């Protein structure tokens, strides 16, 4: 009975009871005491006329009455005390116990046990508090369960969840928030799906490009190798050229030396020939002398013949002698003439020889000049060949660099191809992952997802077809 009364009533009633009790007791006590007092007073008044025994009897009666009164008071006090204690205990228990239960229940619910029921069976405020507490907890639990189940669904990948539960009051905020979240996630996932699609296709492109590049780099590498081979070939030929040029140069020098020797010999020959000339001249002079002698002898012989003729028969022998002398003279003349002819021949030959030697010398000079030219040309060829060699060396180095770059390119492009393949696969995986989520379809309003995420819920239209990788404006 107490339990069903409101606390205030209980407290008022309790305190009334206490007050009444104490009042009653006090009144009784006071009454007694008053009576005693009056008795005492009357006694006292009578005392003067009473004997000590009466006084003693009155005293004792008074004492007894006082004692009684005291006892009543004491009893009243005690009763009041006890009653108040009892009431107090009862009330406090009536309040604190439910409150403890409430406390307990709310502690439990603070720890997450929303099923904690204080189970207070009273109609007082605390009972109502407990009821409403229980109700609240139950509601919260309901909401939480609802949210939890939805989130579980979401965790399982179903973003098409929708709660039919009505959230009241401030709880609607949660519902809105969750809805927003789901919508955002929907959008995000749809966007991710789209993006992953694009990534997949882009990475496919990159992959094929990288493969093409790798192939190109391979071709480059092979071309570069061919180029290197060709350059090596050229280099070899240039070296051969250089060797040939050096040989030619050496030959030219040898030829020059030979020609100089020839020239020297020629000069010696010309000198010898001029000496022959001189000798011939000397001989010529002698021959001339002989000729003169022959001539004179001839004349002498003629004179002798004349004298012999004039001497007549006596000069016959003399005539013979003269004849012989003439013969001799003519032979001498003949011999001298022959010799002169020979000498002339010899001189002619020497002239010829000299002329030929001069011509040869000129030719040799020309040859020397030409050889000089050749030598110069060969030097130029040598220089050019050296330059060529250097240039080829540089070209070879350049080609090597190209080659290494190409190799790097090749490796890089292969890595790129591999990476893009991975990327492609990853994108595919991503795509597959996203496809696992059930996302509500919707119109893709714009590419600006951020705005969408921040827009309010009512802007979402209802379109609940379950197609993956599409937006859904869903009412959560």
């Amino acid at each position, binding site marked *: 009975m107490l339990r069903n009364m409101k606390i205030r009533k209980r407290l008022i009633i309790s305190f009334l009871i206490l007050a009444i009790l104490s009042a009653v007791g006090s009144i009784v006590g006071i009454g007694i005491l008053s009576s005693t007092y009056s008795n005492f007073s009357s006694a006292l008044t009578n005392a003067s006329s009473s004997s000590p025994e009466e006084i003693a009897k009155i005293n004792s009666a008074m004492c007894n009455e006082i004692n009684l009164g005291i006892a009543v008071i004491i009893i009243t006090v005690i009763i009041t005390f006890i009653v108040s204690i009892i009431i107090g205990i009862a009330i406090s228990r009536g309040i604190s116990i439910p409150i403890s239960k409430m406390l307990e229940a709310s502690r439990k619910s603070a720890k997450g046990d929303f099923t904690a029921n204080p189970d207070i069976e009273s109609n007082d405020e605390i009972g109502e508090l407990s009821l409403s507490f229980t109700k609240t907890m139950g509601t919260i639990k309901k909401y939480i369960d609802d949210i939890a189940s939805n989130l579980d669904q979401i965790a399982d990948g179903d973003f098409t969840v929708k709660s039919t539960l009505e959230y009241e009051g401030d709880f609607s905020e949660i519902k809105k928030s969750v809805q927003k979240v789901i919508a955002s996630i929907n959008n995000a996932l749809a966007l991710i799906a789209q993006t992953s699609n694009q990534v997949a296709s882009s990475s496919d492109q990159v992959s094929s490009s990288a493969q093409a590049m790798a192939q190109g780099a391979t071709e480059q590498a092979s071309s570069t190798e061919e180029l290197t081979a060709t350059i090596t070939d050229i280099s070899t030929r240039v070296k051969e050229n250089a060797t040939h040029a050096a040989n030619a140069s050496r030959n030219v020098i040898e030829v020059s030396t030979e020609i100089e020797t020839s020239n020297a010999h020629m000069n010696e020959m010309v000198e010898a020939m001029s000496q022959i000339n001189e000798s011939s001249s000397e001989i010529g002079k002698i021959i001339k002398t002989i000729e003169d002698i022959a001539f004179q002898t001839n004349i002498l012989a003629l004179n002798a013949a004349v004298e012999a003729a004039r001497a*007549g028969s006596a000069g016959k022998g003399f005539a013979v002698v003269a004849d012989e002398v003439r013969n001799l003279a003519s032979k001498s003349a003949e011999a001298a003439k022959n010799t002169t002819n020979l000498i002339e021949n010899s001189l002619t030959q020497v002239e010829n020889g000299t002329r030929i030697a001069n011509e040869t010398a000129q030719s040799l000079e020309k040859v020397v000049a030409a050889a000089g030219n050749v030598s110069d040309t060969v030097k130029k060829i040598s220089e050019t060949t050296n330059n060529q060699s250097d240039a080829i060396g540089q070209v070879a180095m350049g080609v090597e660099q190209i080659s290494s770059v190409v190799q790097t390119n090749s490796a890089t492009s292969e890595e790129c191809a591999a990476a893009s393949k991975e990327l492609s696969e990853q994108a595919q995986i991503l795509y597959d992952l996203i496809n696992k989520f059930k996302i509500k379809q919707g119109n893709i309003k714009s590419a600006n997802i951020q705005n969408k995420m921040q827009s309010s819920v009512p802007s979402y239209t209802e379109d609940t077809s379950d197609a993956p990788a599409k937006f859904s404006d869903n009412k959560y």
Partner: protein
Amino acid sequence: MNNDNNDLRDLNINKNDSSDMKTEMDGKYLTFCIDNQIFGIAISDIVQIVSIQKITPMPRFPSYVKGVINLRGEIIPVIDVRLRFNKPEVPYNKVTCIIIINIGENQYGLIVDAVDEVVKIQDEEITAPPTIADNYENDYLSGIAKLKEKVVLLLDITAILHNNN
């Protein structure tokens, strides 16, 4: 010039004195060469043959008489036969000779281009000089001899001396 004419005419007579020696000297001619023509003179007329030597020109001699030479102390006038035959004069060289001829008591020198030899010419080989040829020159010829392939014009030295103008 008058002196010379006299001398030369005198010499002309002396030619006939040495006829007894003629048999040995018969047919022997000295051939010499002037301007590629071979002439011949009978040996009997020849004294000596000498090489060309220094000629001392005489102021009043005819043009073809070049001058005189000193031959072993004797002064002998020399005649350039070329000029005498109106041929162009050529410079003297080492084969140019002077044939000393004896006409009468005087000796003259004939400057010739070259002397050839002493040949014996038979009479049958000698023919009279043709009259068609240049008269001027023919006066000097006593005949023409044919020797193998050579044609020798035999000179009449007196004629050379004679037609002295």
